[in-house]
C-alpha cells in the first residue's frame, strides 16, 4: 500500500502509522496549498464499542522544507486529548449525535495546532478544537456530513484545519500486487499466472469501504514558500516546497495498572513523503530505521533508488514484456530518473514547462511546485500522463500513484534522462486497473477533499 503498515514495527502501532500524504494547490482556492496526512490504516467502519481515534500520546506533524536541505522550515504540529463524559457506561454514544457538543457523545477528542519555524520558534495557533466523531451509523449520527463540516476550523492566523475520520481515498489492488507481483489486467502474462489465467482480470480495490483518520490543513501559499512571496513563476526554484509527515512518541513508557507514564524526548516512529518509498524502495531490514530519520538523511538509501528491486523483478515476473528494461538492468547503471523523481525533484529543462527540483540534497519529500496551477481536467497518471499538476508534482487525492510508480519503475521516465534508452511499450501501458471511480465514497470538491467516512451500520454490507 502507499504506506499502510509498510514497516515491521509501525505495523504494530496503527495509531502512529502514517498511511498517505497529499499536497496540492487547492483546486477551489488556488492561492492556498492543502496538505493531508492520513493515519490509522484499514479501519473497519463497524468497530464499536471502541471506535478509532488519534493517539493522545502521539505527536503528529506535517513538515515543509522550502530551501532544499531536507529539514523543515515550517512545521505544523497536532496534539490530541480525549475526554470522557461518563465513565460508567460502555457506550461511545448514548443517543443520536447531532452536534459536536452533543451530550449523547460520550468519548470526544480535541486537538491543538502549533506552528514551528525553522529555528524552533513555536506558536500555538489553536487549542481544544473538536474532532468529529467516528461514523458510528445512521441512527447514531443522522447527518454526518454536516457534523464533519462543523469540524472544519478556520484559524485567526489564516489556516484552515480538520482532524478526524474520513473515507479511505487511496485505491490499490493489494491482494494481487503482493501475491507475487500480479497485476490482474496483465495476470495472463505473469510468470506464474499464465498457467492459471487465460485472460486479463478485473482489479479489486482492496481498501474500498475502509476509513482512515486525516489531519488536513490548508494554508496560503505564502506561508510555506521560501521568502513568503505570494507569486512565483513555475521555473523559480523558490516556488518548490518539500512536504512530509511524521509521528513521534516519547521515548520511555512505563505501563501502570491503571495509567501509563510517558516521559522523555519525542522520537520519530513513522514518516511519509512520497507514496511507496519506504514500502517498495527500502528493504525490509532498514524500513524501521528509515521511519526514525529525517529526509536529510536519505542519501544513505539512494542506492535502493538507483537500483530498485522492483525494476529487477518486472522482467522476471513478466517474461518477454520488458526486454529493454531487462537489458538496462544488466548495465547496472543508476536510475537517474527515479533519483530525480524521488530524491531531488525534476530539474528544469527535462519536462517542458515544469520543474520541481529542490537542489542537490537527496531527500524523500513530496515535492510540489506551488506555481503550477490546478489542472482543469486532471489526469490520474499525473506528470506521466502529461498533467504537471499531479504526482509526482505533489499528490492529489485522485492520483493513481500505484500505476504512476509502476510506469516510472518500468522505464517510462528513463528516456527523460537517458536519450539512448527506449522504453518498452508495456511501460506506458502498465497499470493496476483502478481509478477514483473504484472508491465508493466520492471525493469532495472542497476541503478536506476526502469523502465522508463509511458508517458502521452500512459497512460492511
Amino acid at each position, binding site marked *: 500500500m502507499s504506506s499502510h503498515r509498510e514497516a515491521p514495527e509501525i505495523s504494530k502501532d496503527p495509531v502512529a502509522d502514517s498511511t498517505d500524504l497529499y499536497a496540492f494547490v487547492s483546486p477551489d482556492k488556488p492561492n492556498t496549498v492543502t496538505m493531508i496526512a492520513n493515519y490509522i490504516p484499514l479501519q473497519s467502519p463497524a468497530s464499536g464499542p471502541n471506535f478509532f481515534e488519534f493517539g493522545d*500520546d502521539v505527536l503528529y506533524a506535517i513538515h515543509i522544507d522550502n530551501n532544499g536541505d531536507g529539514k523543515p522550515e515550517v512545521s505544523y504540529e497536532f496534539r490530541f486529548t*480525549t475526554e470522557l463524559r461518563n465513565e460508567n457506561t460502555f457506550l461511545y454514544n448514548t443517543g443520536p449525535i447531532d452536534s459536536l457538543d452533543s451530550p449523547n457523545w460520550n468519548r470526544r477528542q480535541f486537538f491543538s495546532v502549533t506552528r514551528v519555524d525553522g529555528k524552533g520558534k513555536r506558536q500555538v495557533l489553536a487549542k481544544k478544537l473538536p474532532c468529529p466523531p467516528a461514523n458510528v451509523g445512521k441512527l447514531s449520527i443522522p447527518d454526518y456530513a454536516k457534523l464533519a463540516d462543523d469540524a472544519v476550523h478556520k484559524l485567526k492566523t489564516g489556516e484552515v484545519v480538520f482532524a478526524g475520520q474520513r473515507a479511505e481515498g487511496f485505491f490499490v489492488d493489494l491482494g494481487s500486487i503482493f501475491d507475487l507481483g500480479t497485476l490482474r489486467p496483465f495476470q495472463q502474462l505473469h510468470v506464474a499466472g499464465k498457467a492459471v489465467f487465460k485472460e486479463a482480470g478485473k482489479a479489486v480495490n482492496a481498501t474500498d469501504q475502509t476509513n482512515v483518520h486525516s489531519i488536513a490543513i490548508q494554508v496560503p501559499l505564502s506561508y510555506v514558500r521560501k521568502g513568503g512571496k505570494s507569486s512565483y513563476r513555475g521555473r523559480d526554484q523558490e516556488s518548490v516546497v518539500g512536504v512530509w509527515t511524521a509521528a513521534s512518541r516519547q521515548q*520511555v513508557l512505563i*505501563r*501502570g495498572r491503571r495509567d501509563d507514564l510517558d*516521559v522523555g524526548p519525542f*522520537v520519530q516512529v513513522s514518516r511519509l513523503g512520497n507514496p511507496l518509498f519506504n514500502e517498495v524502495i527500502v528493504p525490509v531490514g532498514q524500513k524501521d530505521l528509515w521511519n526514525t530519520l529525517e529526509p536529510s538523511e536519505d542519501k544513505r538509501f539512494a542506492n535502493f533508488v538507483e537500483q530498485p528491486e522492483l525494476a529487477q523483478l518486472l522482467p522476471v515476473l513478466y517474461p518477454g514484456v520488458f526486454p529493454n528494461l531487462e537489458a538496462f538492468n544488466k548495465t547496472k547503471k543508476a536510475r537517474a530518473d527515479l533519483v530525480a523523481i524521488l530524491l531531488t525533484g525534476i530539474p528544469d529543462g527535462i519536462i517542458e514547462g515544469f520543474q520541481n527540483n529542490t537542489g542537490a540534497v537527496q531527500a524523500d519529500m513530496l515535492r510540489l511546485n506551488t506555481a503550477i496551477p490546478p489542472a482543469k481536467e486532471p489526469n490520474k497518471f499525473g506528470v506521466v500522463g502529461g498533467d504537471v499538476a499531479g504526482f509526482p508534482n505533489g499528490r492529489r487525492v485522485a492520483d493513481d500513484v500505484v500505476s504512476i510508480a509502476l510506469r516510472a519503475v518500468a522505464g517510462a521516465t528513463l528516456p527523460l534522462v537517458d536519450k539512448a534508452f527506449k522504453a518498452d511499450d508495456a511501460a506506458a501501458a502498465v497499470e493496476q486497473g483502478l481509478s477514483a471511480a473504484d472508491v465508493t465514497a466520492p471525493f469532495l470538491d472542497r476541503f478536506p477533499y476526502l469523502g465522508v467516512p463509511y458508517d458502521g451500520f452500512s459497512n460492511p454490507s
Partner: protein
Amino acid sequence: MSEHSRRAKVRFTRRRVITAAATLGVGAAAASVTGLSLAHDRRGKGAGVGENFVVHVRDAKAGALDIFVGTNRIQVRDKDLAARLALAANG
C-alpha cells in the same frame, strides 16, 4: 503547569510504545527511581517536586546514565551513582 510536567503526567490511554532505538541508541533496560538526589550531576532545573522521571543505566561500569524527565533526556556520567543503582537493582 510547566511544559515538562505537563508532558510527564500520566496519560489517559494505555498503548504500546515503539522506541526508536536506532536513532538514539537507547537499550531496552531502564531503572525507575523515585526520590533519588541528582543534585551533583543534573543540568538545568532538574525534576520538579513530585515529578516522575526515569533513570536508564546505559553502562554501569563507565557510569553512563540517561535521565528521562518531561520531554528531555539528560546524560549523566557518575560511576558512584551507577554502582549504587546497580547494587540496588540486584535487590
